[in-house]
């Protein structure tokens, strides 16, 4: 038996793919997370109130999702409900994260694959089709910076936010700062749409060239976003069966009864399944499980996706397009939210810390994120982090198998396999720092 090993780049964190081949047949595919920091272990003994500032350090890409989830977990344990203004500011913070993440995944991680270059910085002068010349790197960095600036506005610090506190937020957002951000988002919207149009076009061209990305088969889908329109500051999780029917609705405290969570010996990341079946989380799950986007331009894109691919849709390349739709949505929705005042109301409610157990949930860009803490004498006795990427582990390996079987032949291995491995993994936009925490 031969094992092919592929190092991975343009994803968050350290991981590699291994493909076992015997006599021209693919025996197995493994997606291995090769790092571990151990947050679930080393937060033991930490004062519970510090969690919202410690856990963003699990991941500098998904820090906002961890920050908000930590606060919600403590609020669940203490029995606190934040006032409406605090919830609005937290939602805005999560939109900033969505904007930043989807822009990064689209333009920095996956767009270079479409024109077969190593990085976005090689895309400005060297695009295959001269009619599509664009200053991709500058524009892409500008769009993703809007996300960072929205996080800074709503979250205080630019990478590891500090604004959400147990009971609410520590302050509102002054009107003059809101105005500046509004103006920049309005300028950024057409820029993001232009980039996404180019991305969609390049994606179609690559589809014409290579056909499928790797796995077009149905799976279970999981999300916590609202069934009518997107929402990221969420409270319950839904599972959709391969047939398209909703088959499960559960609260974060029930996750162990609903999902099977399993450690794997060849990776520092675990995996989940639903009734033994493969689950998919992230943008395609949301596109399949939300009626519409609730904003004009993003809705137009979603409509186009549904006309071209139906609903529910299953080809994994649609994860990438789904992210673009959400990028546009995040800008439009942030513009709507910034038009409402974000100060002048109660920012928080009083509370008394108490020992016990809490669960928190948000829809992170990669899917539902759950934190679970047990608090004893004011300190964390145990902590669990159920990471969206972990839901996708089996889906990634299944898609890798489909791709490998296509490019591994009895007498040779097609070198396209290396590119296919990158495309498959990046479609799921895994976050390894989070998955291993």
């Amino acid at each position, binding site marked *: 038996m031969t094992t092919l090993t592929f190092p991975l780049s343009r994803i968050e964190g350290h991981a590699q793919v291994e493909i076992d081949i015997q006599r021209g047949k693919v025996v197995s595919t493994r997606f291995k997370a*090769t790092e*571990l920091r151990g947050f679930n272990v080393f937060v033991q003994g930490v004062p519970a*109130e510090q969690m919202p500032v410690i856990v963003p*350090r699990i991941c500098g890409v998904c820090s906002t999702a961890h920050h908000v989830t930590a606060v919600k977990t403590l609020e669940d344990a203490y029995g606190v409900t934040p006032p409406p203004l605090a919830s609005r500011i937290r939602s805005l913070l999560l939109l900033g994260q969505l904007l930043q993440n989807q822009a990064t995944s689209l333009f920095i991680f996956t767009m270079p694959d479409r024109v077969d270059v190593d990085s976005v910085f090689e895309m400005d002068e060297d695009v295959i089709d001269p009619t599509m010349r664009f200053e991709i790197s500058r524009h892409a960095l500008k769009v993703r910076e809007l996300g960072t600036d929205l996080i800074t506005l709503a979250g*205080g610090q630019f990478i590891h936010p500090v604004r959400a506190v147990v009971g609410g937020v*520590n*302050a509102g957002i002054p009107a003059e700062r809101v105005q500046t951000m509004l103006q920049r988002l309005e300028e950024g919207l057409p820029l993001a749409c232009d980039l996404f149009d180019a991305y969609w076009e390049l994606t179609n061209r690559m589809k014409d060239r290579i056909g499928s990305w790797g796995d077009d088969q149905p799976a279970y889908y999981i999300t916590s976003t609202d069934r009518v329109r997107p929402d990221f500051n969420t409270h319950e999780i839904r599972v959709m069966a391969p047939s398209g029917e909703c088959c499960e609705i559960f609260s974060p405290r029930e996750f162990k009864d609903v999902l099977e969570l399993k450690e794997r010996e060849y990776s520092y990341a675990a995996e989940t399944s639903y009734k033994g079946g493969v689950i998919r989380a992230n943008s395609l799950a949301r596109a399949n499980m939300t009626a519409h986007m609730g904003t004009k331009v993003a809705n137009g894109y979603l409509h186009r996706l549904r006309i071209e691919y139906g609903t529910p849709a299953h080809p994994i390349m649609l994860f990438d397009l789904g992210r673009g739709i959400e990028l546009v949505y995040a800008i439009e929705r942030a513009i709507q939210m910034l038009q409402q005042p974000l100060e002048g109301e109660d920012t928080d409610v009083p509370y008394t810390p108490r020992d016990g157990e809490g669960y928190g949930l948000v829809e992170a860009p990669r899917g539902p994120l759950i934190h679970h803490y047990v608090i004893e004498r004011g300190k964390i006795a145990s902590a669990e982090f159920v990471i969206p990427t972990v839901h996708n582990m089996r889906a990634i390996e299944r898609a890798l198998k489909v791709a490998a079987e296509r490019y591994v032949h009895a007498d040779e291995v097609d070198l396209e396999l290396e590119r296919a491995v990158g495309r498959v993994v990046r479609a799921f936009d895994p976050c390894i720092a989070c998955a291993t925490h």
Partner: protein
Amino acid sequence: MTEERPSTHASAQIPRFAVLQLSGCAGCEVSLLNAHEWVDRFELTYMPLVSSAYAVPEVDILLISGGVRTDEDLFHLKHAVKKAKRVVAVGTCAISGGVANLGNRDEVRQLFLHQEERLHVPRLLPKSRPVDDFVPIDLYLPGCPPTPELFMAALLDPKNYQASLTVCQECGRKKLKDMKPDHLVGFQKGNVDPEICLVNQGYLCIGTSTRGGCRAPCTRAGHPCVGCRGPSNALIEKDSKAWLETIQKVFHTMTNVPDDELREALLSPQLALFLFQFSDYAGEDKAPRSKDKVL
């Protein structure tokens, strides 16, 4: 020697840099992406987060983020520094372990040993280590993460970069003589007064002795400084005891918080974030890092 052609010569003028990410959160890389003025002035030759390149080539500047946690981290680190003219340790994890120091407590390390059951993954080292335990460093850029402005300074002209001495000087909140809290309030609370110094409001803010340069985003947003940039130049060549004493003096002057309460808040080994401040700038058995090497 043959004469270089002008085009080759022109590209040789652009400094090349690489980014090696060890065990960390990628927050430093995200911050670097926000500092995009470098796009026109530098050639980025290696940064797995954004580019498909699998080995560090010869570079002028190597930025290293993250701590040394696995044998693979150590391998990459030792290979990469040989290729670089100037090596910069970026972020708290690379410089002192940062939040990962929490995992170096003995009771936690025991739990880490369970990971030995796993197969074919990089082995964990007994402790997470800062990069200068293994390789020489030319410049330290502390922060969790460093701001885009600091990244640009580190790349362009670290010697002439001028920043305020402390976070306190950059914060702009008003210090009041007659507002002395009797006790510390919680670490993170709502309803923060937007104008008044956080110490006056009873927060354990250590911006008075934390290195400036970040422009105080946390304290301006109403969150106490947790010291992620480490000690200011006045304290950086002394041991962490001197830093603690300075903070205690500030609280003696500005508050009526009893000594015991303050000591417990500052010294509790469980006070995770404040490990940033114990970060071994004056190392366990190593000489302190020279302030000339810290940006």
